[in-house]
Structures are given as C-alpha cells and as structure tokens.
C-alpha cells in the first residue's frame, strides 16, 4: 500500500504551519491580522470583482463610502 502523499511539497512552511493550527487558533490569529490590517489603513470594502454578481453594487458602495487608502494584504482571503 503506498502512502498517500498529497502535493504539499508546493505548500510553503507558512501554509503548513497554518494548517497545523486548530480552527479556533486560526480564527484568533486571523483576528490579529485584522487589527494590523486596520491599523495600516486597509479598506474594508471588498476588492472590486468583475465576476461577482454584485460587481455593480460593489462599485457603488465603494464610491459612496469613506475610502481609506487601499491596502491589499498579500495573504489570501
């Protein structure tokens, strides 16, 4: 029987470390990321997504809300 070896070689150490956390730990750590994101002036509006059925409404909301400087965090969302 061969050992299943999913393609986690492509996973960086950081991704594996994230997976090793419990769901609650991820939730808490994501909350800390949040605080940093807000402190650095990240926008809370969703990234414009032309494929979203709500795209036209995202544009409208973005135009009408008080925008802070758009900071795009590198980590996936």
């Amino acid at each position: 029987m061969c050992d299943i070896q999913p393609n986690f070689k492509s996973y960086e150490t950081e991704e594996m470390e994230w997976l090793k956390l419990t769901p609650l730990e991820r939730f808490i750590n994501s909350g800390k990321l949040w605080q940093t994101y807000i402190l650095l002036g990240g926008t809370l509006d969703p990234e414009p997504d032309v494929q979203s059925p709500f795209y036209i409404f995202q544009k409208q909301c973005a135009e009408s809300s008080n925008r802070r400087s758009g900071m795009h965090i590198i980590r996936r969302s």
Partner: protein
Amino acid sequence: MQSLLIGGQACILYGAAEFSRDTDLVVLCNAENLNNIEKSLKSLKAECIFVPPLEIQYLSKGHACHFRSNDEEIKGIRIDIIAKMRNCDEFDKLWERRSTIKVNETESIEIIGIKDLVSSKKTQRDKDWLMLARLVDNDIIITKNPDSEKIKWWLTECRTFENLFSLCTKYREIANECIKLRPLLKCVINNDFKTFYTLLKKEELIHREKDKTYWEPLKKELETLRHKK
C-alpha cells in the same frame, strides 16, 4: 439567531484562507429568525447598504442582503446575509451537517460543513474555484483515517491531478466506483493529464454557466430595486 458562517471566514476556519474582510452568513429564513437577525444587526449598529432589504420575499429567492457595522469596535465591517445558495441544500440540511467550533464554555461558532462550503464555491468566479481546490486539498492533508465516505468525497471534488493520482493509487477500489460519478478519474488512473485537464475545465464550466443563469433574474430584480430607491 440561527445562522452559519460561510464564505471567507469559514475558509479561514478550515485553513484555506488567512484573512477575510467581511463576514458572510447563511441564515434560516423565517419571520422569527429574521427578527432575531435584525436585533443582532441592531446591536452591531449595522446599516443596510444596498438593496434588497432584509425581507423573506428577497432572501427566499436567493438574494443577499448587505450590511455595514457602525459599532466603534468593528466599524466598517461588512456583513452579508443570504438564505439560499445555488447548488446547496436548504438551511435545515446545512444546519444538520454544520461544524461547531467551541470558543469557550458558553460560546461557539457554527460554520457550514466543509462539503457544503465546497458546493457553495461552484460559482462563476475564479477565486471561488481556487478556494474550492484549496479546501479539498487541505482536507486531504489534515484528515487522519478517512472513512470511505470522505475518500469518495475527495475523489469527486479534488481538482489537483497529483492528489487525485495519489488517492486513486491508494484507494483503487473506491476510485473505480467513483468513475461513474466522475469520468475524469479514469484519466487520472491512466495518467492522462491532458484529457484530465480538459474534463476538469468542462466540469467547472458547467457550474459557471449554471451560476450565471441562476443570478440573471436576481440581478435584474436588483436593478429594478436600485432604480426604485
């Protein structure tokens, strides 16, 4: 309030994402629960920022309602509420299959089950397909001692050739059973990446088109509501 965390926040809990700007919830759509939701939104000082309003007639059709909190602690955070998702079961079934994350003795987070989350990601958006792949691949990595039900699910949902090859090799019998459901598994077993990729894209395209068709009447209704506002 009966609701399940979905979207980006659910992906964080399942390890497929690290950050999400908003909070998406699927909710039980009845008068009592909507009343409770309204109270919760009020406690968060959340205002409805777009059409449609939070009403059963819209939620039951599949519309999403969009809010933004004005509470000082979470000012600006978006909360999107939906009651019906394409390709997903009714809320009561989603509720039965939910995962519960215990925060402390008195608080817990109810999130959509991973299989239902994956189903909900079969949309017209590129990012959802990427997230779907990640959710399944991660589940393969972190699950110890999967039962046959889980293995079948991996075989029918995994989108990574190498992972599918490993699964088909290790669980050949189950893979052979699943070929009827998912013909591209035969290409995996035969190590035919080219045909596998073609069939994979075809799988995806079917869902993308279904999602676009699903949203067409809803988008039209949103336009009508928007102009009435």
